[in-house]
């Protein structure tokens, strides 16, 4: 209860404070401090949940169960490490003259606001509030994407705003339909938007309405997940925004959006008792994986490439959840975790690499391992991890997903095989010369913050070789929740 309030309150307060002092020299440290506090609070909350099960508080407006609590911890953690990374990174950006004092203030306060909206979206029990939080997340980040004020960044931000806005509007319509369906069962005052109530009565909800609602919700939140063909905002926003934002977008926002979709899927499956939702998600997932793989092989901008890789992985996760069943759902959750860890780590290294080379064009980034082995090897190992090379966790989940698909939906495996192969060829072929060979890059003024990189990769490694029991319990419970078994 208190922990929950802290989890939500600290970042909110943080954004307020940083809105005032965000331009000072100490601001990055303050930012880190708030993120750390949030992380601690979320850890405490997690401990409580593990100790005494799900809680439902504040007139049922907030609901914490095993599914969202682990995402809360993950979110708070990645937000914290990203803040750590942003500290030197943004300083260097300021030295390069790309960031002015007001922009720094904007960045810091919006960063905190963003993590607040993420946490709110995760913790709320109210589908309406969930929608509000998702929209707010867009609004919080859209100005950050445009923070460099370059034409490209403005364009990216504009597309981000319009596409996500329109998408999220569909989600609102879906929510209304959900409410409409719920009202007939629960009555006007029955709190028809509270997920717990909906979940309780999902069996009696009107199938046609729910189906329609799910379509709108999927289109809406799917846009934010970055499912093809709704993904078009994603590469631009990732490539043009400052790297910490790319990291949190890839690592957190997509996850949270997918979480929203999952909540809706649970209701839909309960109402329809068909594979309708699952099939739709499988279709979207497969399409995203294939398209993203082919996009990958033609990228020149490094951040853009990894943005597409995020689309690919989100597609894979959606596919896994679409398949349903305990193993696949477990794999999907695991993949969510490791993807956000590894991908953000990659963005950290990529950010520094781009700063060293003074460009994001990959042809001009060469031989990182020579000048700065840690950045170089970090990028190499991270890329291999995201490509599904063991012993990293990504491999573990892909192992489960592929083996399950091979037996349950064999027809999908050729597509998966093809796109995974193409993606591997593309990314490895582009990263290898960036890391090895003769060098073109120069050292930096501030020492790069690489602890986050190796912490993330370390966790990903651990998840590939050994999953602690309590973590496993989370996953199992959450998987049961999603698979509806």
């Amino acid at each position, binding site marked *: 209860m208190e922990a929950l309030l802290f989890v939500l309150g600290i970042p909110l307060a943080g954004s307020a404070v940083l809105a005032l002092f965000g331009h000072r020299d100490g601001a990055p440290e303050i930012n880190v401090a708030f993120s750390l506090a949030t992380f601690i609070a979320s850890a405490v909350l997690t401990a409580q949940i593990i100790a005494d099960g799900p809680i439902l508080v504040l007139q049922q407006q907030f609901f914490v169960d095993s599914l969202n609590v682990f995402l809360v911890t993950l979110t708070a953690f990645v937000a914290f490490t990203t803040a750590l990374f942003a500290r030197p990174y943004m300083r260097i950006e300021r030295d390069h003259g790309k960031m002015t004092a007001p922009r720094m203030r904007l960045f810091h306060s919006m960063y905190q606001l963003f993590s607040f909206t993420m946490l709110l979206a995760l913790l709320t029990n109210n589908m309406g509030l969930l929608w*509000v939080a998702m*929209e707010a997340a867009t609004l919080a980040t859209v100005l950050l994407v445009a923070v460099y004020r370059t*034409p490209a960044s403005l364009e990216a931000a504009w597309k981000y*705003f319009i596409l996500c806005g329109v998408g999220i509007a*569909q989600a*609102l*319509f879906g929510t209304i339909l959900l409410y409409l369906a719920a009202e*007939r069962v629960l009555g006007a005052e029955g709190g028809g938007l509270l997920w717990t109530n909906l979940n309780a009565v999902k069996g009696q909800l009107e199938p*046609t309405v729910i189906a329609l609602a799910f379509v709108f919700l999927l289109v809406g939140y799917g846009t934010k997940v970055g499912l093809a063909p709704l993904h078009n905002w994603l590469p631009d926003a990732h490539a043009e925004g400052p790297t910490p934002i790319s990291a949190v977008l890839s690592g957190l926002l997509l996850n949270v959006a997918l979480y929203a979709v999952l909540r809706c899927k649970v209701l839909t499956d309960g109402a329809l008792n068909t594979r309708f939702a699952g099939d739709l998600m499988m279709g979207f997932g497969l399409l995203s994986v294939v398209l993203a793989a082919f996009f990958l092989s033609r990228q020149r901008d490094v951040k853009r490439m990894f943005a597409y890789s995020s689309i690919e992985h989100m597609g894979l996760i959606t596919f896994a959840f679409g398949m349903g069943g305990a193993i696949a759902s477990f794999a999907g959750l695991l993949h969510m975790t490791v993807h956000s860890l590894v991908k953000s780590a990659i963005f950290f290294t990529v950010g520094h690499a781009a700063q060293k080379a003074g460009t994001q064009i990959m042809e001009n980034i060469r031989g990182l391992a020579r000048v700065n082995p840690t950045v170089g090897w970090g990028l190499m190992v991270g890329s291999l991890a995201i490509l599904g090379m063991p012993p990293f966790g990504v491999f573990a989940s892909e192992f489960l997903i592929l083996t399950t698909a091979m037996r349950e939906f064999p027809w999908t495996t050729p597509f998966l095989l093809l796109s995974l192969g193409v993606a591997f060829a593309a990314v490895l072929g582009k990263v290898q010369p960036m890391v090895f060979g003769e060098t073109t890059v120069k050292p930096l003024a501030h020492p790069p913050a690489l602890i986050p990189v190796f912490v993330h990769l370390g966790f990903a490694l651990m998840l590939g070789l050994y999953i602690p029991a309590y973590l496993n319990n989370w996953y199992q419970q959450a998987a049961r929740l999603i698979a509806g078994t």
Partner: protein
Amino acid sequence: MPALFTQLVNLFAALLLLLSFALLSQRRVLSLIHLFTMQGMTLVLSTTVMAYSTQQPHLYYSALLTFLLKVLLMPWLLHRLINRLNVRWDVETLINIPTTMLLGIVLVIFAFNLAAPISSLSASVARGTLGIALACVLLSFLMMITRTKAIPQVIGFLAMENALFFAATSATYGMPMVVELGIALDVLIGMIVLGVFMFQIREQFDSLDIRHLESLKEE
């Protein structure tokens, strides 16, 4: 509940649809804003009628909120915007107007058929309204697709919000207050952000023609 109210609500719904079509066909920015304001007004009225007919106090609040936001604040902001940026030109569209209208009609039919089975389930007074709301959503979507300038696109976006709001109030007895507030807040912030954007875009490209915003692509 008396049939009168139902008829009133249906009337407003029809009006809303009409306004959406008008938005779709209108070229001049200024009149677009006027139409948008009228749409907001219709929304307010229908909400009040609903509130009165169903004795739902919070619908009054939401009606008030809508009035403040969509009838007073938004148009005012838009007006200021176009004055500051002095963009009062005619808007040319990607697809010519008649085609757009035809598409729109097809969409409306589609939406009605889609909503028919659902609206029969609707517990609320206005059964047909859901279809109309859906139609409005799709129409404003179409409008956003067809417009090449930033402001009309935004107006399309807001019109979509209106339609959604209408759906929320008429098909159901309105969303819970907290959600309403949240939505309203988002819309407000969205407007402000948009305003900021407009200026930034303006100073970058010295125009609001979003066809300048097509450089980020797979070359």
